[in-house]
């Protein structure tokens, strides 16, 4: 509901509600402050315009109300910070689910595409090596390495089963990109040289945009993929066809 | 109209304009080299392996250069004291030494650079060499600027002596503060790059 009022895209992941609540509350605070001060401001301009109040009062306002308002603002910000934002962040960063309960998938960004790498049925990723990167092998997967045979690699097509935690291990081959799925309220920069885990629980069937949020060159605007959240059965079927067509 | 407090200190602040100016300048220089040192630390901590400076660098030459620069700081102070005591020939002597030692530092540095290039070591070789050339290069630019200023104070700038000896003394003092700063930067750089 909050998302609707603020014009945010439909939430499609489990953690989104908490972020939307924070978003709603902080905007409510902003609105109250702006209308409060704005009302005072406009009233003052009308009441004390020179035409109506030709002789100014040297001492001006004597009330301490503004000090109390300032203290109230500080307290409200503190509550939002400690009550919502910091805990939400902590669960986002350190609340990673155990790997065996989650769908683990590697996402390797490049100018200007998302390479998606699933470990396949064995649940273990094959070795990747930068030297092997080529147009037909965008992640540099070494097919001869032990766990590589069943791995699935796709471009710009991220399929996920609904209601299961997902861990995306995010990295990039060239410059900084940013993995952003607005419907999940998920965004994370991909930093060269680092592999950063991102997790979420998609809870709504459908297709969502996966966009790049960090300027990465002339094709930044068209670096876009699709996230398909589907039933576990459909997901398994999809993975199997991908293995077959490899 | 004259700008006030260019030669005499303002009573309530207790400094002249140029003294305050040079200290502010040095504060910004501290931030400049401070950031570069932080970059050094960050890159080093993040690196899987890091070469030992002493295995690559010519430590005796570096130590000699350290001595040269410290000595020049001393001669710079002596030059300023001489000027304050209005002893011109002693000023020329010590300032001359300071300039000479500065040139000597730069020559040794140039020799070291040439030596590194000969061994095939360039800024692009690895992060350590990159930092070495960038940090010492920037420092050498500062030394060179100091040498130019000191030479000017010895020659062309000296015509100020007749008109306004106090002003010249203040300039020498300011140049001295700068020179000590350049010296201190080197005293940090030397262990960072040659010893650790």
């Amino acid at each position: 509901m909050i998302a609707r009022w603020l014009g945010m895209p439909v939430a499609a992941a489990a953690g989104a509600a908490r972020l939307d609540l924070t978003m709603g509350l902080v905007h409510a605070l902003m609105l109250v402050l702006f209308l409060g001060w704005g009302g005072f401001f406009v009233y003052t301009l009308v009441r004390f315009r020179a035409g109506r109040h030709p002789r100014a009062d040297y001492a001006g306002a004597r009330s301490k109300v503004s000090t109390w308002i300032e203290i109230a603002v500080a307290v409200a910000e503190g509550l939002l910070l400690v009550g919502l934002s910091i805990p939400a962040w902590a669960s986002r960063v350190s609340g990673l689910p155990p790997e065996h309960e989650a769908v683990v998938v590697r996402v390797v960004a490049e100018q200007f595409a998302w390479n998606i790498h699933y470990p396949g049925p064995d649940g273990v990723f094959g070795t990747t090596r930068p030297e092997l990167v080529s147009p037909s092998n965008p992640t540099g997967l070494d097919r001869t390495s032990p766990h590589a045979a069943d791995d699935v690699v796709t471009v710009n097509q991220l399929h996920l089963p609904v209601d299961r935690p997902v861990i995306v291990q995010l990295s990039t081959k060239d410059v900084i990109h940013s993995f952003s799925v607005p419907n999940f309220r998920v965004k994370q920069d991909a930093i060269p040289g680092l592999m950063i885990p991102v997790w979420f629980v998609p809870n709504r069937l459908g297709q969502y945009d996966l966009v790049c949020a960090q300027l990465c060159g002339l094709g930044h605007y068209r670096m876009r993929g699709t996230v398909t959240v589907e039933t576990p059965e459909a997901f398994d079927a999809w993975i199997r066809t991908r293995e077959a067509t490899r | 109209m004259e700008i006030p407090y260019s030669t005499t200190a303002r009573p309530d602040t207790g400094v002249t304009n140029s003294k305050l100016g040079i200290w502010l300048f040095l504060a910004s220089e501290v931030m400049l080299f401070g950031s570069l040192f932080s970059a050094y630390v960050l890159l080093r901590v993040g690196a899987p392996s890091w070469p030992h400076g002493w295995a690559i660098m010519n430590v005796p030459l570096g130590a000699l250069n350290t001595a040269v620069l410290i000595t020049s700081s001393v001669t710079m102070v002596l030059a300023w004291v001489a000027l304050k005591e209005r002893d011109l020939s002693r000023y020329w002597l010590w300032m001359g030494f300071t300039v000479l030692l500065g040139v000597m530092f730069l020559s040794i540095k140039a020799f070291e650079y040439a030596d590194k290039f000969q061994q095939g070591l360039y800024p692009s070789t690895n992060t350590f060499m990159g930092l070495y050339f960038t940090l010492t290069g920037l420092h050498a630019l500062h030394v060179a600027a100091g040498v130019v200023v000191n030479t000017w104070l010895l020659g062309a700038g000296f015509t100020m002596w007749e008109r306004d000896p106090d002003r010249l003394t203040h300039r020498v003092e300011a140049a001295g503060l700068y020179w000590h700063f350049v010296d201190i930067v080197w005293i940090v750089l030397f262990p960072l790059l040659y010893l650790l």
Partner: protein
Amino acid sequence: MTTQSSDAHAAVPPFWRRTLFSTDHKVIGIQYAITAMVFLLVGFFLMMLMRWQLAYPGRPIPLVGGLLGATRAPGGIMLPEFYNQLGAMHGTIMIFLGVVPLAVGGFGNYLVPLQIGAPDMAFPRLNLASYWAFAAGGVVMIASFFAPGGAASSGWTSYPPLADIATTGQTFWLAGMVLLITSSLLGSINFITTIVQLRAPGLSFMRLPFFVWSQLVTSFLLLLAFPPLEAAAVLQLMDRVAGTSFYLPSGLVVGGKAMAVAGGGSPLLWQHLFWFLAHPEVYVLILPAMGIVAEIIANSSRKPLWGYRLMVYSVVFLGFMSFLVWAHHMFLTGMGTTMSAFFQTTTMIISIPSVVVLSSLVVSLWGGAIRFTTPALFALAFLPMFGIGGLTGLPLGLAATDIHLHDTYYVIGHFHYVVAPGTIFALFAGVYYWFPKATGRMMNARLGAIHFWGSFVTMNLIFMPMFIQGLAGMNRRLYDAGVQDPHLQGLQPWSVLQGWSAWALGVFQLVFIVNVFWSLRKGSRVDANPWQATTLEWAATSSPPPHGNFAVIPTVRRGPYEYSVPGAPADFTPQNAI
């Protein structure tokens, strides 16, 4: 040179010496102001091109499209690489060549010595050098458009590795920045020394006009925050020119080819150094604006500023805190809980002094006799506009909500509210207010009102929809305004509205330019103190002030805003009145 004004030749230097190479702070201030306004206009023009592409993606640009050439806009249709150049250079030019030189180099230079009762800046020749370093930096920046591959295109933030592998324009950008940084350093040393050393007798720190305080804090920010960017720029230059890899980790594969560098560097090193500058830099953009607004509010409400002392403490605290919040631009770079908690907290803390300053300014109006002159209109509008910009900083400062908002148009909306209808309005207010001091003539009030209302309405039409776009998830720096993203369908009409508003905004700026030139020749003549103001630049010298500023150095006897003192003969009591 001021100190030689007794010399026979120096008495009447040739015209070019008096105008181009004068060491008089007033001349340098005006040079700065004019150059900076020209750059603002250039930045404005780049923005109008961008807004065309955003309103009508892929349609040939009317009028100028054909002039841009095949490497930028073949057939008048903008290329994505050119859009990125426009974005990066619009940001760079507006901030480093427009607002800072106008606010600090222009207003600061012109007004600080006058307001503190000094004959000139402490180091007049350094001042001249600072201007020319700035001008050289500007030339290099503009020249970069003609470099092979065009101007810098990696955003004004120049994040590596993208900036490391960008075309030659990026090297120009770095070289230009080094010159601009040098200029700012020279300037800030000069300002601090001048304010500390050259205050007139009786002018204690707590009697300084608030504008002078804002310049003092700004100068400290420039002095201490710019060197880290200089360090960062030197390292990036080395990466680009000498083949080092300070910002490049090992194993990069660009365009399908392994990069031939040693590696071992860190892309985040740049971001830390950059934002360590760039956050204080945003307060450099706002503090002088607050100073200008405070002067004009006191004058046009005819009463003292409410809570002057608290405002001074707030800006000093603001300046100090601004060094501790930089990583709130980097929440999504993979930051842990502790770091993010620290930077969220400092960010919330730093919002409080802004709230205090803004509240004090609003409360100052209470009990006044407010005159709605042109400068007052702009200064008053500054308050709610900065309010919107500042308030929208809060959801960005909370890391949880920043996840959704980071790198969207919400950020663009946030900071444009602060810099455009915020700072730019304050600067306009300052031009209208001090124009009579600098030229001896008033600006036309009717044209001024048209300029104000036109700019006010169109700016809000441009920037308000950005919050809607941002919340909907529309990213910034998008060449096609997101028209192809399924989740952004239905948003395009906003872009069209923004486009037309931007061009209308341009028309209202023409009114301003006409007003400036018209008033230079035809504006009504004024005496020394047309606004009946209290500070020294009005009360103690003519309009325009002579070389050396004051016939005799004034003695200050009271605070800066003694308006409507009970029992006083007039409703203003100048600082130097007996």
